[in-house]
């Protein structure tokens, strides 16, 4: 990877940390420890289920919110503060700027997810007193959540290249919601016929397919995750993030910054 991309990525990460993004970890820790203690007292035999479900859902939602709210400002904020001109006046290509920003944001989210995953595992140890073999699938669920972050990061960056921060947030969040129903969307498309069916199928493949990346429920029920699913999900997340990133590069490359 070019040194320039690494420098931009590191700077983006540093900026996110300076923006006190990682403070969300405190809220997460409080929420999870509170839930673990509370559920243990008021319910029967679902402590593990609640900790895994609540923990992983929170990791996912916190990450998506962070990805959206940081991602939408990655380009527009740099233009607004005019720092972008300083960066681009140096020997940095526009595509390197976009790719660097992507890796910086993705890195922030991975670090965030890593700490939150430790929190989930600690809470699990607190309620279950020991780890069991199926608990290993929680790590796969966290890995899938990180793949989900890559997709959301790339999409927010794409929108950030041509839209205002507010609209970018709306677009990105809408795609996150639609993508969560990706299976249903393709199901509807399969039921439609003619031109409607064609358009629906195209739309179903165009929006991110986030359903397979959500294995929280099955992991909470100690169900194993198929190795094929891990391979295909990885391939899909990388390819889809690649699509959005290429789109962002194409737009940013042709954008008039004067």
């Amino acid at each position, binding site marked *: 990877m070019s040194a320039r991309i690494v420098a931009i990525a590191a700077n983006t990460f540093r900026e996110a940390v300076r923006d006190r993004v990682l403070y969300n970890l405190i809220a997460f820790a409080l929420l999870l420890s509170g839930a673990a203690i509370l559920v243990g007292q008021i319910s029967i035999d679902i402590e593990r289920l609640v900790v895994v479900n609540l923990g992983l859902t929170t990791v996912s939602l916190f990450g998506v919110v962070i990805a959206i709210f940081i991602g939408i400002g990655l380009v527009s904020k740099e233009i607004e503060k005019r720092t972008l001109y300083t960066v681009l006046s140096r020997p940095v*290509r*526009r*595509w390197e700027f976009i790719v660097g920003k992507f890796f910086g944001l993705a890195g922030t989210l991975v670090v965030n997810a890593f700490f939150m995953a430790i929190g989930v595992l600690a809470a699990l140890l607190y309620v279950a007193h020991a780890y069991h073999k199926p608990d290993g699938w929680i790590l796969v669920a966290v890995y899938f959540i990180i793949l989900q972050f890559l997709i959301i990061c790339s999409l927010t960056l794409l929108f950030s290249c041509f839209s205002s921060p507010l609209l970018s947030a709306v677009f990105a969040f809408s795609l996150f919601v639609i993508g969560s*129903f990706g*299976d*249903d969307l*393709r*199901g*509807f498309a*399969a*039921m439609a016929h003619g031109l409607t069916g064609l358009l629906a199928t195209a739309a179903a*493949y165009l929006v991110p*397919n986030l*359903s*397979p990346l959500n294995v929280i*429920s*099955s992991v*909470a*029920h100690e169900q194993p995750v*198929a190795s*094929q*699913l891990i391979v*295909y*999900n990885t*391939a*899909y997340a990388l*390819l*889809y993030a*690649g*699509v959005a990133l*290429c*789109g962002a*590069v*194409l737009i940013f*490359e*042709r954008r008039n910054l004067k």
Partner: protein
Amino acid sequence: MSGSRRVTVTAGLLLLLSMAGSIAVVRRLDQVRSGATLEEVLYISSPKLLKRMSLGYEGLLADIYWTRAVQYFGNRLIVRASHYNLLAPLLEITTGLDPHLLVAYQFGANFLAPSPPNGAGVPDKAIQLVEFGIQNNPDDWHLYYELGFVYYLELKDYAKAADAFDRGSKVPHAHPFLKILAAEMAQHAGDIQMARALWTTTYQTTQDKQIRANAVAHLRALQVDQDVTILEQMVGLYREQTGHWPSAMADLVTAGMLRALPRDPTGRPYRLAVEGRVEVEAPDDIPFIEKGTPPGYQPPPPKHLESQP
């Protein structure tokens, strides 16, 4: 080529390749996860909990669950599945989220009641579903009609069927035929004419293409069942009179028992098989028939039905 143009071309090519790759991977993912999705969505099977979680958007969620139920039923029907275990919970969630979603009761009862492979074979669940619908939509006569239909066709409980039609006939703006059905049920329960009257009413009281097509298919099947019964009686009579089986349907015409060669609803002539059995020429084209099929006949997967009688 300038640097910017090179980047544009490369990014464009990468975009297209990645898009094609992602579509291919999604298709593979669908194969890997076939069936898993619905089992996952049923981890939360309480409509009350789902209603709270939907943050007031339970109507939309009900539509999604209804579509999932339809897809599940359709996919199982195509492979002529022997069980439909997830259908009842999906319908329960759908109607729990939106108790006024009438199509879910009307179609749902028809999905649940018939025996596999045409349905889930759980008429008691179908009755439970429609009764829940009536409880929440007491002024809709269609639901009483569906209830009577399930009691009549699937459970052969004519008294309860008559009661359902009678209850429905008292609903404001009920179809006048419900009163007749209630009365006829008491007299002619079990007759093929009764079944025909029910399917005819179904055809006449709906604009939905699929319900109409289903009614047409059943009416055709009833016609075949009736024709085959009558023709086999005639063949038996011919044997009594002549001492041997007729060699072809034409023998019945020659003997003056029939005016012309009898034809099934598709226009094909009925065929005479061994030992006086009467068969249709193409049973695959006439779904739901109970008579007139060769021994050991297995119906094919359902295909698109015609909506004209």
